[in-house]
């Protein structure tokens, strides 16, 4: 083993890139779940965002428009889920799974003409002065814009949920939709908005894969990232900053295990590959030991269908 061949600074920098797709999808899903809706269609919205963003960027030559298109496509697709679960009162778990399957099929249909193309490259943003700081500079301040946008979305979500009236209303709807309805809040409208936000974030995460991290379009390229994002929300016990920590941890382990392999580490790397999932399970067990769902921080109305009877 030759650990000195690992460039730890580059590892830290690539960790931030590897974590960004699941961070974006995760923070979007957090908001959806905070509003009391369980959308298991993250994978489908991500892959749809990946192709929509890719197509938009290739057609317009602008990565920025690509990301906007991806967010729009993710939000649009999530509206299908919203119609099914909020108006047709369909089962959320089944609708979410259907959304994933639909998204995978839709994306491969949309992607027919885009296999083998190269997207316009997303410029790196070497922040003046900051990126010249030794050690910290290259790790933290020389990424593309989306890495910072993702962090900004986390910060914004945290602030909105914690300090604003909108956040309070959203949480109220997620904790007890009957009570929120009795107080006159428009439960369905709020939930639809949350679902749209979640879809937009998942779309951005998908586009980050197809435009920056890979960067190309291939069918099925999210290969399970959406499911990791779902696990991430539980891992983070529905707290925005913990989503950030969790995403970096998961992303970090992925990159670290590849680095250790390349350095010739003689431990079975399968253990490292599965460690994000093991960590999630351990956290779940620790958090849920004896104190039930409340201790986990799960919104009380999560996954329950709301129908205004009164």
């Amino acid at each position, binding site marked *: 083993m030759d650990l000195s*061949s*690992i*460039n730890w600074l*580059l*590892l830290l920098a*690539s960790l931030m890139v*590897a974590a960004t*797709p699941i961070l974006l999808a995760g923070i979007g899903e957090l908001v959806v779940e905070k509003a009391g809706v369980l959308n298991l269609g993250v994978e489908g919205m991500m892959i749809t965002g990946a192709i929509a963003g890719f197509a938009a960027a290739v057609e317009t030559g602008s990565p920025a428009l690509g990301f906007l298109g991806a967010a729009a496509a993710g939000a649009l697709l999530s509206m299908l889920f919203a119609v099914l679960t909020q108006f047709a009162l369909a089962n959320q778990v089944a609708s979410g799974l259907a959304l994933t399957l639909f998204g995978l099929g839709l994306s*491969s249909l949309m*992607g*027919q003409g885009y*296999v*083998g*193309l*190269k997207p316009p*490259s997303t410029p790196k943003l070497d922040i003046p002065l900051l990126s010249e700081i030794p050690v910290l500079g290259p790790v933290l301040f020389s990424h593309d814009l989306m890495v910072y946008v993702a962090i900004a979305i986390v910060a914004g979500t945290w602030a909105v949920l914690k300090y604003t009236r909108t956040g309070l209303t959203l949480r109220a709807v997620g904790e007890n939709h009957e009570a929120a309805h009795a107080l006159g809040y428009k439960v369905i409208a709020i939930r639809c908005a949350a679902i749209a936000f979640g879809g937009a974030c998942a779309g951005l995460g998908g586009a980050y*894969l197809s435009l920056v*991290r*890979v*960067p*190309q379009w*291939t*069918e*099925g*390229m*999210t*290969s399970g*990232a959406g499911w990791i994002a779902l696990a991430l929300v539980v891992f983070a016990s529905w707290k925005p900053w913990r989503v950030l920590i969790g995403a970096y941890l998961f992303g970090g382990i*992925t*990159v670290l295990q*590849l*680095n250790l*392999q*390349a*350095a*010739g580490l*003689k431990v*079975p*790397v*399968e253990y490292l*590959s599965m460690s994000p999932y093991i960590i999630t399970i351990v956290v779940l067990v620790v958090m849920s030991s004896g104190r039930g769902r409340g201790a986990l921080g799960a919104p009380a109305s999560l996954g329950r269908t709301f129908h205004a009877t009164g």
Partner: protein
Amino acid sequence: MKKRTLLKGAVAALALAASPALAESHSEKTKVGFVYVGPVGDGGWTYEHDQGRKAVEAEFGDAVETVYVENVPEGPDAERVITQMALDGADLIFTTSFGYMDPTINVAAKFPDVKFEHATGYKTAPNVSVYSARFYEGRAVQGTIAGRMTESNVIGYIGSVPIPEVVRGINSAFIHARKVNPDVQFKIVWVYEWFNPAKEADAAKVLIEQGADVILQHTDSTAPLAAAAEAGNVIGFGQASDMAEYADGPRVSSIIDNWAPYYIARTKAVMDGTWESTNTWDGIGPGMVGIGEITDKVPAEVKAEALALKDAIASGEYQPFTGPLKKQDGSDWLAEGETADDGTLAGMNFYVEGLEGEIPQ
């Protein structure tokens, strides 16, 4: 009441009229099924198998009907898909990934009249053939180019699933890289999947960060080439498919799987009733393995050397595993001039001397 009788009568008449035609068309057409591990748009392994399927359609036109199912996971689900295909009346089914071996054998036992062809496996039955290509011949050519082209003397190799097929490729590439450059070192990263673009891209980036300036891959997507293109001064190769879209960038050559002639021949055999269980393992010579055009990035003398090796392999004059060769632990494997037999190659589960690391078990 009357109306309903009339309708019924009409339906019955239609059915009568249609059924002989239906039956006839069914007996005329040979139905060929394909089971794919990835999406047909992966640009690599599955893409090339699908090109083979299209070639079968082009060759026989209306005489055949082809069906395929993509993204079929290796394991129990594959058995369900293959069974369904057999139930739907397929006469010949190609299962195109190593992990479909046992499912194929299981389903074949239940459908003795259906012919099965399993790619890259070793288990046969009276109605199951196996076929594969000698990709390691192509890897010898890649290794030669890689060994000559590397400046850092570090070559990165992205392994997919640790099975003999992949180990054979690593050994072949390494032996030939060392032959032209004794200082060369291989860094191997396993991703445990055939197709996962994000992971493949990360693996390529890690290898580049750790000093590799040549990336070899045994995974199906073009993501490693995209990563190499981004890094700038790194070269790579097309895998399974030509991946010519990267020819202006990192791609200097490729290994191309050419299944079309085989698929056409086997479909024809089913149509003629001459199909028999066989074991096919063809390489560069018969054209099952193609070497994609070597670009101008490669100096002329290196290109000539690589092509000479390719010709020597094609004519059967040279075998990539020719002694003297030792195993990783230093024990003797092949004596001077001795060549490895197909049995050893098919089950290869060891690295040759000079490679670092262990094969994951």
